[in-house]
Each structure stands twice: as C-alpha cells, then as structure tokens.
C-alpha cells in the first residue's frame, strides 16, 4: 500500500515545528543547533517526498546538497559555540546579548 504524500508532509511539518520551537525556547546553544538540524531534516523529508510523488530525482539531489550544507553548517556552528564558551564561560544563548541597543 502506497502511503500518500500528505502523511509525509504532516510528519515533516511536525518535525519542523518541533525544531522551530526548540530554536525559540532552548537556552543551550548546542540544543539550538540541534533544533536547526531538525528543521533541516524536515525540509529534506519534503524534498524526498515530492521527488517520489513526481517521479523525478531533482528533489533527492536537492536533499543531498542540503545534507552536505547542514554538515558544514554544524561544523561552523559548533566551532562558534566553542569560541563563545571560551570567551563567555557559558553557552546560554540568553547571555549573548551584546548586540542590544
């Protein structure tokens, strides 16, 4: 039995929402990064879903690209997190407010 595309999309939407909520509420920098990854994966899921339903490979290629970019982004993001910790002795995002005013 073929699972309809809407099911995949609902999962992706839930996944994305959980990630978004994490980005907004989590105070730990690492967890914020993790939430962003969740959103990435939700989008990848949508890519693959539409690739299946339309019967071509464009979406899968895009998903692969997206994963590569996500990997690079995590590397940079973690490096930033480490540097932030070194300079501020904390990874609480609420503390990083020197852009205020």
């Amino acid at each position, binding site marked *: 039995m073929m699972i309809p595309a809407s099911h995949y999309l609902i999962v992706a939407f839930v996944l994305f929402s959980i990630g*978004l909520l994490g*980005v*907004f*509420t989590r105070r730990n920098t690492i967890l*914020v990064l993790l939430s962003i990854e969740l959103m990435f994966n939700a989008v990848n899921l949508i890519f693959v879903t539409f690739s299946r339903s339309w019967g071509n490979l464009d979406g899968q290629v895009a998903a692969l690209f997206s994963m590569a970019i996500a990997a690079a982004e995590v590397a940079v993001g973690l490096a930033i997190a480490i540097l932030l910790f070194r300079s501020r002795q904390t990874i609480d*995002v*609420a503390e*990083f*407010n*020197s*852009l*205020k*005013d």
Partner: protein
Amino acid sequence: MYSLIILSPFLAFAVISLITRRFRGLSALIAIASLLVSFALILKLFLALFGIGAMPEAVSASWLSLPGMNFEMGLLFDRLSILMGLLVSGVGSLIFIFSAGYMEEDPGFSRFFAFLSLFAAAMLGIVFSTNFVQIFIFWELVGLASYLLIGFWFQKDSAADAGKKAFMVNRVGDFGFILGIILIWFLSDPSAEGMKRTVDFAGLAAMIPGSLANGMVSSVAVFTAGILIFCGVIGKSAQFPLHVWLPDAMEGPTPVSALIHAATMVAAGVYLLARVFFLFTLSAELLQIIAIIGAITALMAATMGVVEKDIKRVLAYSTMSQLGFMVLAMGLSDPVAGIYHLLTHGFFKALLFLGAGCVIHAVHTQNLFDMGGLFKRMPVTSIAFFIGTFALCGLFPTAGFFSKEEILAAAMHKSPVFFGVAIFTVFLTSFYMGRLVTLAFLGHPGRGQTPFYEKGSDPFPDEAPFVMTFPLIILSFLSVTAGYFGIPALLGAETEHHGSSMNLTLISSAVVLAGLTVSFLVYRVKRQSEDPLAHTLGPLYTLISRRYFMDDLYDFYVQKIQQPFAALCNKGNDLFVIKGLSNLTGEGLYRLGSLTRKMFTGNVQTYSLILVFQILVVFVIAVVFMQLTK
C-alpha cells in the same frame, strides 16, 4: 578672439591658483603676460578706431535662456569701452610689474598675483559688458576680488576688517543696483513695439526715451531706476554716504591700492554712469542729485585729506575727492569731462600710489610726520611723485590740468554754487598734496619724535629697484602728456565743448599755486610731530579728523540698532522655528525611536522569532494577493 581680453587674466587666475602657486617667478610672469595679452588686443581695437585694421562686430552669446527672458554675455566695442579698457589693462600691467618688486618678500606672492589677475579680469569684464546682468556679474566679481586683496594680509585684524567693511558697504550699494536692474527690466515693456524685454544697453538706449515720450513709462519710474542704479555707483565709487570703506581699504598692499584707485573698482562706478548715461539724462532731478552727491563727496574728502597723517590715506581721500569731481561732471551732464578726468586720474593716481609704495617700501612707515628729506635719497621716486602731485592739483601743463579744467568749465557753465565748491576743493587738494610733499620729501629726515630710520630695518632708505621705478617713469610720462592726445574728441564729445576760457585757467592756476604755497609755508617748519593745524582749527579739526563721525554713526547703527534687531530675530527664530518646528520633529522621531528600540533586546531567539513572524506575514500577504489577482 577678443573674448581673450577677459579670459586671459581670468585663466591666469585659474592657472596660478591651481597649478603654479609654488613657483613665485612663474606665477608673476603668467599674470603679467596675461594682462599684456589683453592690453595688446585692446590696443589693436584702439588702432581700429583710427581705421588701422578692421573694427570687429560686437560679440554676444546667450548665457541664460528662460521662457520669456534671455540674458547674454558679450563684448561691446565702442570708444568708451576701448579707451577704458586701454586704461585698465595698461595701468594694470604697470602695477602688476611694480608688484613683482614690491611684494618680493611676501610669502603670499603667488596668491597675490592670482587675485590681481582676477581683479583685472573682472574689471575688464565690466568695461566690455553689453548688458546690465553681465555688468552686474562682473561688478560683484570686482567686489570679491577687492575683498580678497584688501584683506590680503588677513593675519592682521585691521586688514581683515577692512576687507569685510569694503565688501559689506559695497553690498549695500549693490542691493540698490540689482533692484534698479530689475526695475529697468520691467520698464523695458515691449508690448507696443513688438520687441523683447531687455537689459541690453543698446536696446534700452533705443527704447526707454521713446517709451518715456509716449507715456508708456512714467518719469517717476525712470527716476527711481536711475537712483537705484546710482546706489551701485555710490557704493563702488565711494561716494557720500557709502564712502567709508575706501580709507580703510588702505590696509591692503600698496599696489592693490593703486589698482583699486586708478584702474579698477572705483573707476567702475563712474564708468557705469557714463555707460548708462542715456538713462540719467532723462531726468533733470536725477542729474541734480548726482551732482550734489558728487560735490559733497569732493569737498568732504578733500577736507579729510587735509588732516590725515597716513600717506596712503591722504591719497585715498584725494581719490574720493576726484571721484566726486567725476560724478559732479556726470551730474552736470558732461559725461565726456567725467570720463576724461577718470582716464587722466587713472594715470596720475597710479603714479602717486606706486610712488607712495616706493616710499613705504624704503622707510617702513606710513606716517607723514615720521618722514622727511626723501628727495635726496630717492630722486626718481620723488620727481615722479612731484609730477603726480602737479597732475592731481591740476597744474599746467600736466594731464590733470586739462581734464579738471573741463569739469570746472562745466560747473561754471551750469551753476555758481557747484563752481564755488569745485574751486574750493581744488584749493584744498593742492593744500593737502603740498602738505604731503613738503612733509615727506622736503626738509630734513626725521622731523618727528622717532625718525623713520630708527624704526625701520634699513639704516637709511634708498631708491627702489628698477622694476618698481620703471612703471613710475612710464606713468609720469603719461601723466604729463595724456592731456595732448585729444581724448575728449576721441570720446566723441557730443555735448557742447566748453573749452577752457582764459579766465578760468587763471583762476584755477592761481588757486592751485596758492594752495601749494600755503601748505609749504605751514609745514616747512622742522621737527614737528604734531599737525599745526590742530591748534588753528580747534574743534573743527576734531570733527574732520574723526571723519565727520560717519564711521561712528555706522558703528552706532550696526551695534545699537542692527545687532539688537538681529538678536531679537534670532530669539524669535529660536523660539518658534528651532524650538517649535525643528525640535518637535526631532523629539517626535526620538520618542518613536525609543519605543521601537525596546524590540532590540540583544536576544538571538527574540530576533529569530520576529524574523519568522515577518516571513509568515509576507507569505500570507503574497498568498492573499495571488488569490485576489487570480
């Protein structure tokens, strides 16, 4: 090609100030050469007057074209402009050459020549102008150049102030001038004739008398326009009551004084009178007022010259007085005599100022009572100065004699009152010039308390270098011979030629000789540092030496009336415009800013929330829009 007359000194100004400022000699060379180019071109025009070579047509090009009005820039070639141009460029060149010697040690040498070039270019622009707007532009340029040159030694407060004063006082007159130009523009109503409104001299000269005759223009309007234009003349030619800037202008370097007094600046006013004489001659009252102003200035300046101790200021007052003579001649509707005197005066006044420059260069003082006995040390300068003095007094056979005689004849012809004032002024002129010469050149050196040779750096003054005496010699020659060139005939004396009657010659010569003799007898006494006239004249002396309190009057007006008024306006402006409007706008925006800045907490998560919210809003709008346009 002839536009080079104006352009060449103007280019010199640009080149010197932009490129060659560092090279002193080159700058001077460029300035002198550029003016000599103008001189050569004008000389060519001058020869064309006698049929040697072709007379070029007047050139003009559209400068500013607006719906319903068209202003032109052009060159006007007639006897008046060519003779005047010859004076400006010729005497100007000599003064330029003199400056190369006089300013040799000045650090601002190149700047000086740049400004001089600008001055000469602007003045030549006035001389060859074809219309009121063009003449006004160059008129203002002359004002600017005079400001720069009078305040050339701007490190000195007095010089900076004098420059400002000259500029401001001229501005008062020029305001009247520009109003007059606007009025003239409206008077040149074309409705009936099918002609265009114009500010062109030739067009106006053809139009205004006709419109006045057939009643299209009222005589009051012509009178008003004439008075307003005359305001410009009063300012520029230092006539009463706007004469106060001229004595202070002596703060500038001496060659500048020579230039201002002989060829440029003050000559511009008289030239303008002659140029638009067709307008002034339409109203008898106007001429009367001009004559009265001229007579007052002539007499007033002469009396002030009598009590002045500064050699340059004496000459300044003499210029004022002679300008009064010229304006008087215009008022007596004898413009030829006025311009004739302007030309000869240009020669001998340049001579006198350059001579004074040599003296100051040598003795480092300007106080007459510190000088004396210079004749033995500076023979060339002294003889040149004597010639200039005789020409200024109007002694036969110098040039000044002929031109002054013309004016006196016109005055005698028209009104005994003006003649009386004029002849008394002639007496005063010869008196103060005799006084100057006696104090500075005759007698023994160091008649004052502190002789000049102890003040100056040199042990004793010596004759000026050749580059400075050379212009003196040429100018001396011209001051003597300019009366024999038949200038009045060249100017095309249409008005009846008064000639000089024997009686008049006898009277004026006797008066001049009397003046010279009296002053010689009074000031011959050795070792005096005080003016003996101070005792004789008593309170009158105070009145005159304070310049009739005119400066105090202006000071009072500016400080006690104008300044408080300005302060009041300033306060009102502060209250309503700045506090009211500007601050309202500013404060309002500030408050708005304080509200929105609360959004910016520095918290990354808040920012991202806002970001997502905004994306959603844009998305919703886009979707709604797409639905609507479907």
